[in-house]
């Protein structure tokens, strides 16, 4: 999995590419933890290039969201592909996270 990130209007935008599963979750967690530790309070995870997410990936997102909430920050998700969107919708994660169709819509009013 490839992870890249940049900053837009004070929001850290993280892009995951490939599969976010047990093997890649630690790397994703480290990246996100690093951002939170560095004082970032607004994180947008762009799933546009993500093919699959496992329970380990979901735990990474939950842990990050919890940390951000603790520091008065916020986590948003955007550009979920059809498969991932279905998992989020059916299992109920779309109500736990703020999910947006595109990056632009997610950044709006962040």
């Amino acid at each position, binding site marked *: 999995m490839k992870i890249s990130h940049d900053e837009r209007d004070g929001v850290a935008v993280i892009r995951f590419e490939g599969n976010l599963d047990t093997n890649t979750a630690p790397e994703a967690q480290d990246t996100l933890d690093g951002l939170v530790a560095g004082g970032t309070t607004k994180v947008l995870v762009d799933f546009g290039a993500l093919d699959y*997410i*496992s*329970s380990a990936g*979901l*735990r990474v997102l*939950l*842990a990050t969201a*919890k940390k951000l909430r603790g520091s008065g920050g916020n986590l948003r998700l955007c550009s979920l592909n059809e498969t991932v969107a*279905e*998992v989020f*919708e*059916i*299992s*109920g*994660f*779309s*109500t*736990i996270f703020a999910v947006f169709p595109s990056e632009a819509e997610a950044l709006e009013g962040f």
Partner: protein
Amino acid sequence: MTGAGARTSSQGARLLRERSTFRVVWDLVIVAAVVLTGILIPLQIAFIREVQWGGSLLVYLLDVVFLVDIAVSFRASYRAGGAEVTDPAAVARRYRRSGFTADLLGVIPLDALFLASSAAVGGVPLALLLRATRLLRLQRLLRSFRRWERLHNTNTGYLRITKLVIGIFLLIHWIGCGWFLVAVLEGFPENSWAVVAGIDGLDRGSQYLRSLYWGFVTTTTVGFGDIVPARNAEYAFTILVMVLGASMYALIIGSIASLVSSIDAAKAAFWDRADGVSQYLRTRAVPESLQRQIRDYYEYIWERYRGSSTQQFLRDLPDPIRLEVVFHLTRELIEKVPLFRQAEPALRNALLMSLQPLVLVPGTFVVREGELATGVYFVSSGELAITTEGGERHLGHLKAGDYFGDLSLLLGERRTGSVHAETHSDIFFLPSADFERLRSAYPEFRKVLREIASAKSEKLEDLVAAGCIL
């Protein structure tokens, strides 16, 4: 109009439907009237032996009831070939062929012609003897019982017991009346049983009681010997009663045995099966605690479903009826589980038809850690516990209205948590194949799930954060 008990046919005639309230009430009235006739007429002939104003009025009132019954029978639908026949012409034709003649003979007041006459046979007024034609009404009693046995869902065993009790009581009543009538017709000679027993001068009530007592003693083959025949007619009557008594005794024993076994047939068959399972488990040295759990399961199934496992029973039904039954059985679930509340009728029916009911006794595991997802579970009643790490860590409870098993199915992962029943629970299982089929056949399924997912988001967040995937 069926509620009011009538239906207007194409010919304009009013037909009384078999399940109408009127028919049910009328059947009860007729059964009571037949029993009253069966008691009253022999009593008048054997013990009253005079035309009394009150007794006659009662007899004619009963005649009116049976006259109305003839009119009712001409308009009462019947059942043939599994269907209710509601054609008035067919109904009338059938009644004319079966029952009408006996009913008609039973209401013709032949006795009225001799009310003022002093004609008598052996001291019994002819008018009273002619009232015996009304006993033809007994066949009407059998018709009512036959109808009830076919029509009602109640255990026919109880109906047969009622029929047997009425039959035995009437028979012994007639035997008692007949026994006294023998003495009456012979004019109470000195050696007749009634004179020897010293009841010829007693009041009617005492006479009846002694005669009835003799009927019971003889038919039940007890035979105390305190009242014995002395004259030929009495011997002949006693022989007849002995034959009747022996047959009745055999009939009673046979009927009671058959009734007891038929009333308890379902129970006996169920517990035979349960005992067979217990015996097998004992033979195979299955742990005592598991044996107790299985016994508990059978007891719960018996208490809750009277032995008919829902699943087994549903398999025998055609789809449309099964849907109706499932809809009824799961109405509680439909009200409690948001999935059913939110789903459109078509999706809800498809869900209901795919659900498999499961009955759980305390301690039974529904899903275990490490298992592959096989479907989604919906809790209908009871309380279940979520655990991980081999049951060491308790993560929460599931109760009526909750569902689980969807996440491991969607993610294609093995479960990392277990769920077991803490109380007796009823749950419904939606197999993964059906879950997938519904997802593709009903696009709104996903929408419904999204809408209802918020209710379980908090619990879901805690479980996933704790590493528990169900």
